[in-house]
């Protein structure tokens, strides 16, 4: 297998974009990433697009072809384009498919993109579309919602480890603080623990401010063989590991509700592949679709002991300047969570950090970064490790 580098990145503004179309925002991300990499269309060997529910959100399927077309790469060049779906991990999976295509030697220059346009439908329709990522027959039909599933994880975590609502709220407060420094973030306002605790209860013990929002957005990265990456950019960022793991789709079938075994498995594979451990990671983007998800991720990725994620957050260790800055972009919570785009946006943020281009939210001297993208309540997990050094 060949080494792979990321040579260009671009994330669109995240938020409610009623004046923009689905194809509009993907093309903005794709073209932006190509400009960043100084790559022209003729060089592109293939496209992978992460998208969860185009059919339900914008009544558009056949998204691979649509995006190749509107990027100007379908007619004449006929660049192959593949849509990849793994619920909220669709973006991370598109990235992985792109990396594998380059690593295998089958492709040289590959665009991995992710996109979701979620605000064109009512919020209850959006929730229904999202709920399809759980077990429709044995969770959804019983009245389960995604906040409800994560609320049950939170309840048991609190019961077993003494995690508090305040600690959960601190995840949101920290991510909003980071988001306030990110020009593309959906929410750029800071919030307080009190505001989180006073916000409307969605699924006890999770308040609305414990939940990531409904968001429109797209992101893209350009991948190249590491051997030629310097021909395109002075700051290639190298892919040290790509790992994916599955778990039961229904939360109730898990070995332990408070541990996402797919995350643990993907993280272990990624650490092995990169030859590093949790202590070597300088900056991480984790899948904080709900505040409890970040607490679990801190533990499952090995940054804190099982059960200590809440305390770890309370101590400020996950803030910029802490021992392991988590979600410098603002995370899914403040940056926004356009489900199919999230995994690619995470990689774009880590690349920006490793290049030293993150401005006010820059983590000093960041050399090795990680992304962690989850589908459903943990049935799919993707972990990538990126590095400034090859």
């Amino acid at each position, binding site marked *: 297998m060949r080494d792979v580098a990321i040579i260009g990145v671009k994330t669109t503004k995240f938020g409610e974009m009623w004046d923009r179309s689905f194809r509009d925002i993907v093309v903005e991300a794709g073209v932006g990433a190509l400009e960043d990499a100084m790559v022209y269309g003729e060089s592109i060997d293939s496209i992978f697009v992460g998208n969860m529910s185009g059919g339900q959100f914008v009544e558009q399927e056949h998204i691979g072809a649509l995006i190749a077309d509107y990027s100007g790469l379908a007619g004449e060049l006929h660049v192959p384009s593949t849509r990849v779906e793994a619920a909220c991990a669709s973006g991370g999976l598109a990235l992985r498919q792109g990396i594998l295509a380059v690593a295998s030697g089958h492709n040289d220059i590959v665009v991995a993109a992710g996109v979701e346009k979620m605000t064109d439908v009512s919020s209850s329709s959006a929730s229904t579309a999202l709920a399809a990522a759980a077990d429709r027959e044995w969770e959804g039909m019983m*009245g*389960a919602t995604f*906040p409800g599933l994560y609320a049950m*994880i939170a309840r*048991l975590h609190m*019961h077993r480890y003494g995690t508090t609502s305040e600690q959960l709220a601190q995840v949101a407060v920290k991510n909003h603080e980071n988001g306030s420094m990110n020009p593309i973030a959906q929410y750029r306002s800071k919030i307080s623990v009190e505001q989180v605790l006073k916000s*409307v209860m969605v*699924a006890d*013990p999770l308040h609305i401010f414990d939940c990531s929002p409904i968001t429109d957005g797209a992101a893209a990265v350009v991948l190249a063989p590491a051997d030629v990456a310097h021909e395109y950019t002075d700051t290639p960022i190298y892919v040290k590991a790509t790992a994916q793991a599955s778990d039961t789709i229904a939360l109730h079938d898990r070995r332990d509700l408070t541990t996402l075994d797919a995350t643990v498995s993907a993280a272990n594979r990624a650490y092995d592949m990169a030859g590093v451990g949790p202590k070597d990671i300088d900056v991480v983007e984790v899948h904080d679709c709900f505040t409890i998800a970040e607490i679990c991720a801190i533990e499952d990725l090995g940054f804190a002991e099982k059960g200590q994620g809440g305390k770890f957050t309370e101590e400020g260790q996950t803030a910029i300047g802490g021992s392991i800055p988590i979600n410098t972009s603002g995370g899914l919570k403040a940056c926004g969570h356009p489900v199919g785009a999230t995994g690619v946006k995470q990689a774009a943020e880590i690349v920006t950090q490793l290049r030293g281009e993150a401005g006010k939210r820059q983590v000093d001297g960041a050399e090795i970064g990680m992304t962690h993208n989850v589908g459903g309540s943990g049935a799919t997990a993707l972990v990538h490790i990126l590095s400034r050094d090859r």
Partner: protein
Amino acid sequence: MSVPRFWRQQVQRYNLIGTHCESCNEYYYPPRNTCPFCRRGGELEPYKFKGDGEIVSYTIIHTAAEGFEHQTPYVLGIVKLDEGPRLTSQIVAEIDEVDIGTRVRPVFRKLGESGENGMIYYGTKFTPV
């Protein structure tokens, strides 16, 4: 939310019928066609659960899924049946009657309906013993 037409055909939903693997002695609900432990080596037989169990975790849903709006707030739980398997179900109870570890038994209830004139569908909920 549309309800698949096969819903009423599935007796397992009303009767808590799952499967038991004769090879490894594990019980499954919802029923499975392949034993996750023995895989192709498993020998699965239908099994009717006694229905007694306990609450592993729960939440009170305030913002409902589509089709469940009229029921809020409702208690949703993960129940561990005494034979081992766990399932997601609504808990019919006052909120202060529910806790982690609470013993429950099954009750047959309406789960919802698809639209105003749509099909009503039923299933198993649980209630504190």
